[in-house]
Every structure is written in structure tokens, then in C-alpha cells.
């Protein structure tokens, strides 16, 4: 794993140059130029099907750009493809992707699997991140259900555990696709508060798909609206 030297806060971290994404024959958006600073909280909003999740997938390197380019900057300011940041991006998937048969705590600890060679984890999952996993679960109000099998937890509990997993990685950046969509208003504010506090404390860049305008106004530094009704398909 590449060593991470202390990067300057406020320095460019993510750069999109004329990025365009297409789903089948339909362009979701084209010509998106954007620079996200290190430690910035960028909210991505817009109607369903506009391409918010596709953008997050592209930032994570899970979806190739249809046109244009995107790159992450390392501590020295050199451009890196998203694939180079694998293991350093805290991903929170819209469909959660928790292991249903494992407890929430184990699921959160699994975020750090990639830090260990595979032959060292054959006998069991590493527990070195357990203290941090427990702290995150506690902060998200899941301390009492930490040992409960994921499949037996409610949708909201699973969603908060997915957020904890993304943060447990101690990533450089967090890419969260609708991380609070299954939570009640208070729960959503609490979860986003944890995300913002972690981001501030550790200088994490956050790109977070959100639907509620109050959440965007309270937690985000900037908002990117992706909407096919807009002339360019997006607006900052």
C-alpha cells in the first residue's frame, strides 16, 4: 500500500475534465469539469436516474468514463487513476453490500481486509480495526446491535453499518451513494454528522449523494446538481 504523507488541506484532490457518462445510448451528462479540494464535502443531488450513482461509480473506478477524464491527486499533487486508490476510498454503496450472515461488527472490520495479504487472512479476519469499528458503530447508535447478524438488522441499521464500514477503512476520501436514504430525519442528521466530523478530523474528501435539501445545506460545502432538465445536464 502506498504511503500517505500529510497532504495540504485545500489542495486539489479530485479533478474531472470534460467528464461524460452514458447509459446505453443515452448520455447522462457531458462535459463535466470539476475540481474537488482535499477535505471538501461535495453533495451530489438530482432526480432519480439522472446519473448520480453512475458518477460515484466512475469516481471509484467501477465505471469507465464514456468521455473526458477523471483523476485523483496524490500527496505530491500527481494525477492518479481511480484504480490506484483502491483500498483508500471508503465506499458506501446504495445497495449496502453487507455480508448478510455476518454480524455488523465483522462487516465493518472487513473494510480493512485489503490491508493484509490474503494468505494472512485465511485463518480468520483481522481484528486490528475492531476498536475503531466499535467506536464508529457506537457513534452511529449501533453499539447494542454490533454483534447481531446483518440479515437480522433493520434496513436503517444496515445502512448505518455500511457507512461505518466505509469510514473504518480510514480512507483518503469517502464516496457515499445515498448513505442515509433509509434513516428517519434524526437518524440521518446523526449519521451525516458522524461523516462530517470524521471528514473534518481526518481531512477526508467526501462525495455524497443526498436527496434532502436541508441535509445538503447543513453538511455540504458545495453541491453538484445532476439533472437532465438543466441545459448542460448539471450545475454547481
Amino acid at each position: 500500500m502506498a504511503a500517505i504523507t500529510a497532504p495540504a488541506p485545500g489542495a486539489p484532490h479530485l479533478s474531472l475534465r470534460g467528464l461524460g457518462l452514458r447509459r446505453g445510448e443515452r448520455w447522462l451528462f457531458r462535459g463535466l469539469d470539476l475540481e474537488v479540494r482535499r477535505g471538501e464535502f461535495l453533495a451530489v443531488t438530482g432526480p432519480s436516474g439522472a446519473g448520480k450513482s453512475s458518477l460515484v461509480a466512475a469516481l471509484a473506478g467501477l465505471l469507465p468514463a464514456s468521455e473526458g477524464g477523471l483523476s485523483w491527486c496524490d500527496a505530491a499533487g500527481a494525477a492518479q487513476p481511480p484504480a490506484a486508490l483502491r483500498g483508500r476510498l471508503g465506499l458506501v454503496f446504495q445497495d449496502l453490500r453487507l455480508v448478510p450472515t455476518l454480524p455488523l461488527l465483522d462487516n465493518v472490520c472487513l473494510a480493512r481486509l485489503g490491508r493484509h495479504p490474503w494468505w494472512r487472512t485465511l485463518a480468520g479476519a483481522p481484528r486490528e480495526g475492531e476498536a475503531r469499528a466499535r467506536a464508529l458503530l457506537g457513534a452511529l447508535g449501533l453499539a447494542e446491535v454490533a454483534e447481531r447478524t446483518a440479515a437480522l438488522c433493520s434496513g436503517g441499521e444496515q445502512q448505518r453499518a455500511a457507512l461505518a464500514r466505509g469510514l473504518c477503512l480510514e480512507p483518503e476520501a469517502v464516496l457515499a451513494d445515498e448513505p442515509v436514504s433509509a434513516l428517519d430525519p434524526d437518524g440521518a442528521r446523526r449519521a451525516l454528522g458522524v461523516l462530517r466530523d470524521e471528514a473534518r478530523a481526518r481531512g477526508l474528501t467526501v462525495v455524497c449523494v443526498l436527496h434532502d435539501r436541508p441535509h445538503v445545506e447543513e453538511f455540504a460545502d458545495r453541491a453538484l446538481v445532476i439533472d437532465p432538465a438543466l441545459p448542460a445536464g448539471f450545475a454547481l
Partner: protein
Amino acid sequence: MSAPKRGRALYERLDLETVLALLLAAAAVWSLPVLRGSGRDLDHWANLKRFLGRFLPPDLSVLPDVAAALGETFRIAVLATLFAVALSLPLALCAARTVSPRPLALLARLAMNMVRTLPSLVWALVAVAVVGANPLAGVVALTFYSVGYLGKFFADAFESVDLKVAAGLRALGAHPIQAFQYGLWPQARPLVWSQSLWMLEYNLRSAAIVGYVGAGGIGVQLHAYQEYYQWDRFATVLLCILALVIALDLVGERLRARLLRRTGSAETLAAD
């Protein structure tokens, strides 16, 4: 143009279930001649009463021998299931279409289909011919027989899991082997355990049968008592097998239910 319309309406009425019912009815009529039996005027009811009368009362003096043979049957079933699980897991991975390349999956499924085609008794005959009339033959026969089933069950289990979970771990930086071990395997594991337990129960019943052709276990005794018309002793063996199967059924069912509960299919909604 009324005739084609009527024809189409008739075709629409002939859905798959109706066609199957008609085919079954035709097959039943065609099969009726086998009910003629020998053609002799036999008193079937008296025959049955006389035959069953020889079973009673069961001769419990053979219980120690039966218990020892049942123990051997249990050992045959345990080892056969264990070996079958070990062989089936890699085979099932090859046969899972979501994990393996399509040609490999087809080849593995074809191999398992061929294994399943032969009944356990035929596998036992082959095993006795190869390793002799002993419990090892039972283990070998039931291992091969079980691989055909467990391989298919395990492959279906691997195909039923959510691959996105493993893909999610990969995206978080896990090695493919780690993604399999921690993302895919935990989802399939309860099913694999449940099916292995079912196979153990099944093999216990089969182990009693394969002994008929000399492959060890309680079946050897069953065969001997039948050969010498010792039906009261035969009845004791049957009662012991019945007790064992019922006990295993009860324990196995509870264990399987507990295992499958961990997949959360029934409880997820209740927890909301």
C-alpha cells in the same frame, strides 16, 4: 375466418399444466396392464397378514448385534458424507455459472448428472467389485453417489448468493481470494452445512441399503436375516433403523432450521 379463431382459442386453453395432466392421464391408462399381477387368484390380504405375522414379536435378543451394525452404518455414512463434501466443494465452484467460465460449468454439471444417474445400489455393486465386500465399499459407493447430489446443491448455493457483496469487498481493496472467503463463502456456508446434514441423513438410510450387496453396515444383517427367514430379527433391525432415522430427522431438521435462520430470509422483515 372463424375456424382459425376457434383453433387459437383451443391452443390458448392448452397451457402447460393441462398438457401435463392429459399426458399423465394417457400414461396412467397405458400403464393399467401392470396391475394384473401374476394372473393367479391369490388371497393378497391373507398373504400380507401371514407375512407380517412373522415379524411379531420382534426378537430383541439380537439388539447388541444390531446396535454394533448400526454403529458401522453410521460410520460409513459419516465418512462418505465427509469425503463427498470435500470433493463436492471444488466441483461445485466449477459448476457455479456465476463463478466459473460457462464451458467449465457445463462440463462440471454434466459430470455430476452422470454420477447422479446411477442409483446408490449400483455404485455399491461397483465398489464391492473393486474393493471387496466390506464397509470400505459402502464408503466408496456413498461418497460417489453423494458427490452427484452435493455438487449440484452446493453449485446452486453458490449461484444463489449475492455476488455484489464480494464485489463490494473487492472495491474496498480486498484480494479476490479474500472477497471469496469473506464475501461469498459466508453467504453460501449455511446452505452448505444444511445440505451436508441432509446428505448425512440420506446416507444413513442409503447405508442400510447398500449393505444388501455386501457393502457393510446394517444392510448385511438385514440381508442375512431375510435369507434365513428370521423375520422377527428382521423386524428388530427395521425398528432400530426407524428409530435412528426419526431421531436424525428431528435433530437434523432443527439444526437446518437454525442454520438457515442465519441467512435471515424469514427474520429480516420481523426486525424492522
